[in-house]
């Protein structure tokens, strides 16, 4: 994944793009495409839907970059467009009842065919369970967990992307994480960690 340009580097590219410089906008695409795709994927049914949403978001952003005020980071603005595009595609799927072809890999498919030792298999299983649980979270909680815990944005950065004050963001993150934990609790607790009253009788 490309590192994001510095704020000043990004501002310069945005200023040039606003003036119609397509080369500058293409640089913004290269810097932000992987990251936007990764986030949008969490709001999409399939990888190709996520790719389409990413493309649409950049097209829309290019056409309306004159309206970008520049008081937030470019990615923040792009993120909102991208997630809206992903939801629009999901809605289109739902209303048309589009069948996902077997060649169009559903997002929650976890490919892991390599032989695994137990620890690796357990880690892969936990990741798969978390993937499923994340997809079942309400959008607002999912967005908080995706940005902060998966994509690694700071609390302040993720709050800015979602247009929330930090306190409100933290509240959503808290609820999202607790819901996730509840969904995979049976898997996360091994016998040593279970509350005493939940353990079976001790062997002598």
């Amino acid at each position: 994944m490309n590192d994001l340009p510095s704020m000043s580097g990004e501002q310069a590219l945005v200023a040039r793009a606003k003036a119609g410089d397509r080369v500058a906008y293409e640089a913004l695409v290269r810097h932000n495409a992987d990251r936007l795709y990764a986030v949008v994927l969490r709001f999409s049914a399939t990888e190709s839907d996520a790719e389409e949403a990413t493309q649409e978001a950049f097209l829309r952003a290019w056409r309306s970059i004159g309206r970008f005020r520049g008081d937030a980071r470019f990615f923040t603005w792009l993120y909102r467009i991208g997630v809206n595009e992903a939801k629009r595609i999901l809605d289109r799927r739902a209303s048309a009842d589009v069948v996902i072809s077997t060649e169009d890999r559903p997002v929650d498919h976890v490919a892991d065919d390599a032989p695994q030792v137990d620890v690796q298999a357990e880690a892969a299983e936990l990741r798969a369970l978390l993937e499923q649980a994340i997809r079942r979270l309400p959008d607002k909680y999912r967005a908080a967990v995706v940005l902060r815990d998966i994509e690694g944005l700071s609390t302040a950065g993720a709050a800015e992307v979602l247009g929330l004050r930090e306190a409100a963001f933290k509240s959503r993150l808290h609820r999202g994480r607790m819901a996730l934990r509840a969904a995979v609790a049976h898997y996360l607790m091994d016998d040593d960690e279970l509350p005493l009253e939940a353990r079976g009788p001790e062997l002598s």
Partner: protein
Amino acid sequence: MSGVVRQMVDHRFTKAHALEYLDGELPQAECERVERHASVCPKCRALLASLRRMIETLPGLAAQPRPSVADGVLERLRREG
């Protein structure tokens, strides 16, 4: 405050602040309060351990970028932009 009441109050505090504790956002004195309580409370130990494991696993879910994502965007921009 009796020992039992203190334990109940600390139990509620630990549950409410477990995530802040794991994120390193609790002041030192409150961290020590959480740790002291967890050392005598199996439920809170389990809560902290499971949340920690979950939070440590989540970054591993980051999507592997498709090499074609940026190329696909640029191609559409050139065609339709």
